[in-house]
Each structure stands twice: as structure tokens, then as C-alpha cells.
């Protein structure tokens, strides 16, 4: 299924692994330091039903206005140590990143009806193309440009591929299971 959705997201439980979503509205950026900071100090904005994007963007000021130059996803598994607590505390609907996340996050997605989606890694220019402006930014002074909490206005931001849904399915688990089987075959072949 293909979805074109507006934020905030009302119910993320309907999305299944393999679905593709395009987002119009707001996307909130948070990576390593931002997760830590928000969990420690609380969020300065409402995150319920939000789309949280693991991304450290290239942003530059042009004529006193922020201009998003590149904004592809960063590796999500680094946030595994924070994400379950983050989901339980702030109730975002969609986590966007790359590479997938682990068992702790999968459990939290199930418990709180959220999903994880993959955005093609490295596609910073494609993403910037769909970002229409900066609404606000938090913790810029302390965390710097790549780590700050940016709120981007987006139009048809995607393709976001659902790879972990709220029913406990993970495409990564499937791919890994299959790859592990292949690995064992290959290792046997090498041994011959």
C-alpha cells in the first residue's frame, strides 16, 4: 500500500511492513545527543503523533533564513539505547532512519502503536528537495547544526518504506534470517 499522510499522524497501527508512506507537514529531527537531551530535560514541543527523523542535516543561513542543503538519514541503531524510553515518554507515531533498529525498539513500537520506516541512506539531496523550510530549531547553541532538534516543513517527504510495524514484524529480521542461511552456505563452500 502507498499512503500520503499529513502530520500529526492519528493512528500508525494501520501501516504494515512493505507499505510506502509520503509525509506532508512537519518532521522533527533528533539523533544521538538530541535523544539524550530530550529524555533528560523534557521536550520543548509536542511530540505526540510526530514523525521523528534520525538525521544530522547540512543547514546554512541565507539572507537571515535557514536553508536546508542536505538531509538524508543517519544510522538508527545508535539510538537503540534511547528509543524505547523515548517512544514511551513522547509517543511519536513514525520513526524515520536507516539500517533499522533492535528488539527493544520493536517491542516499544508494539506497545505504543508506532512504526519505524527506512529512508534511503545517503539521499541527502533528494530529501532536501522535499523539505520546504525550517519552522524552528531547539538546542542549536549547545548541540550544533548536525545534533540540534530541527523542525522541518515537508511536502511529500519520502519514499518512507515501513520496515518495522506495530504488530512486531521487522523486515530486518527477515533479511537477516535469510542472509544468515546464505552465509552458512557460503562458509561451507569456502571450507571445501
Amino acid at each position: 500500500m502507498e499512503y500520503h499522510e499529513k502530520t500529526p499522524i492519528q493512528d500508525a497501527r494501520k501501516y504494515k511492513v512493505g507499505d510506502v508512506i509520503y509525509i506532508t507537514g512537519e518532521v522533527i529531527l533528533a539523533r544521538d545527543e538530541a535523544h539524550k537531551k530530550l529524555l533528560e530535560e523534557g521536550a520543548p514541543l509536542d511530540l505526540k503523533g510526530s514523525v521523528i527523523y534520525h538525521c544530522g542535516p547540512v543547514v546554512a543561513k541565507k539572507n537571515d533564513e535557514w536553508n536546508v542543503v542536505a538531509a538524508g538519514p543517519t544510522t538508527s541503531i545508535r539510538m537503540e539505547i534511547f528509543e524505547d524510553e523515548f517512544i514511551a515518554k513522547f509517543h511519536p507515531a513514525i520513526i524515520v532512519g536507516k539500517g533499522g533498529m533492535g528488539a527493544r525498539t520493536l517491542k516499544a513500537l508494539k506497545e505504543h502503536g508506532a512504526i519505524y520506516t527506512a529512508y534511503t541512506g545517503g539521499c541527502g539531496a533528494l530529501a532536501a528537495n522535499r523539505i520546504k523550510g525550517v519552522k524552528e530549531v531547539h538546542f542549536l547553541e549547545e548541540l550544533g547544526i548536525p545534533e540540534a532538534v530541527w523542525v522541518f516543513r515537508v511536502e511529500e517527504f519520502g519514499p518512507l518504506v515501513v520496515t518495522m510495524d506495530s504488530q512486531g514484524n521487522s523486515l530486518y529480521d527477515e533479511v537477516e534470517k535469510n542472509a544468515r542461511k546464505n552465509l552458512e552456505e557460503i562458509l561451507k563452500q569456502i571450507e571445501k
Partner: protein
Amino acid sequence: MIDEIVYAIKKAETQLSEDTVKALKVAYERESNPMARTQLEAILKNVEIAEKHFLPMCQDTGLQTFFLDIGYDFPFMRELKTAIIEAVRRATKEIPLRPNAVHPFLHKNSGDNTGRFVPYIHWELREGDDAVIHVIPKGGGSENMSGLYMLPPGVGIKGIKKKVIEHIFNSGGKPCPPTIIGVGIGGGADLVLTLAKKAAILRPIGTRHEEEFVAQLEEELYEMANKLGIGPMGLGGDTTVLDVHVEYAHRHPATLPLGIVTQCWANRKRKVRISADGKVEVV
């Protein structure tokens, strides 16, 4: 020469190297997994937008890295280092680049991609009076999937093959596949990783090592890696690596170092050639 280095950084960051574009297009044509095709399509679309609008192709504009290949009689030796550092500062502002130089103790970002020992400059000398600067900004996600294994020499080439394939399996989707894998064998812990990095990035995709048994190992590792089925971005598919390049050095009898460097699809690399008469050219 600063202008040309800034231009080479800009070209590297915004125009994907021709060998990589070609390899991605071939992979897209061949790929049988529909999920994988969406990922390769997004990458190719992204590359097109980046080139058209002079935008960095990836928001991680990398750790600014320079491999220098210099003739003993090159007359502008003294200017190289300061020119590179100045070019990085200017490129950071002009392109712009993401500031990617963070103090490991103070967590402070220098803001201009320079700092202690960065930009990283690797110097190599040879006969001649010209210099080539390889401009190779390197992404952090793929760099995290590097590996150094000090194997017991008894495991031989078989042991190396196993380790490389296990390493690619364990990396999964994290280094933004399809990747280019550089494999170093022999030397010591430091040399083996330098060999691997040069093999991964400086060698064009699709080329084979000049020695037959090394070329054969490359071909074999390439086939096996793509049989894993990890696919673009780890979502499954036929395209896990675009190529595997191997380089080796003689080893100490007691050691068998294996170095693995992973390069993401955003295989950014350009060259600045400087002749003895001061002519500068960006390739």
C-alpha cells in the same frame, strides 16, 4: 591552488564519480528484488538532483581526507598542507559542508571541519616533479563498518575469505549498501588499513588487481558477498556490494593482518593534479 582544491571538494561532494554511477545503473538493471529497486532508484534520483543543483549528495559530507601522491622534486611542497586546510575551511562555508570535526573530550564541534590532525592528510612520495591530491571525503556510517583482524597465519587465504564475508554479513544495512569493499592483507595493523582504504576508494570500480591470484580473490569475494542477499540499505536484494578490491603487503611470519574498509555508495573522489610549472587541473 586553493581555488582548485575547493573546486575538487565541491565536485567530489556534488557529482558522484563516473565509475560509481555506471555501477549503480548496471545494478539497477540487474536487480530482481522490487524493494531493492526502489532504493537504487532513489539513490540514482538523488545523484541526479545533487548534480543538477550543486548540492552535496549526502548530508554526511564526510571527514575531509586527502591522499597525496607527490614527486620527490615537486617544487610547492611547503604550500600543500596550508592550502588544503584553507581549502577545507572555505569549502565548508561555500558549498556548504556539514561541520564534522568534533573534539572527543570536550564534545565541541570546531565548525569548519578542521582540528587536531584533521583534515587527515596522507603523504606518499615517488619519482617525479608533479603532485596528485586525491580528495576523498569519507562518510562516518561506512567508516564505522571498518575492521581490523589479526588472524593466526595458519588460517590462510581460506580464513581471510571467511572473515571478509562474515564482516560484510555483520555490517548488514548499516554502511549504506551497495558498498565498495577494500580488503588489505599483510603488513601491520596500520599499513593493512591504509592498503584497504586505498583499494576501496582510489581503485576504479570494475578494475581488477594486476596479479592473477589477487584478481581471482576479488572476483570470488564479490560473487559471495552478493549471494548474502543483504541488498541495498539492508532491505534485501541481489546488490550488496558494487565491487571488492584487494591489496596486500608482505607480512611478519607471526602475523596475518586483515584490514577491511567499507565505502558507501556515495563514493566521493576527485583528483587535483599540480605540475611543476604550477599548472593545476581538477579531474
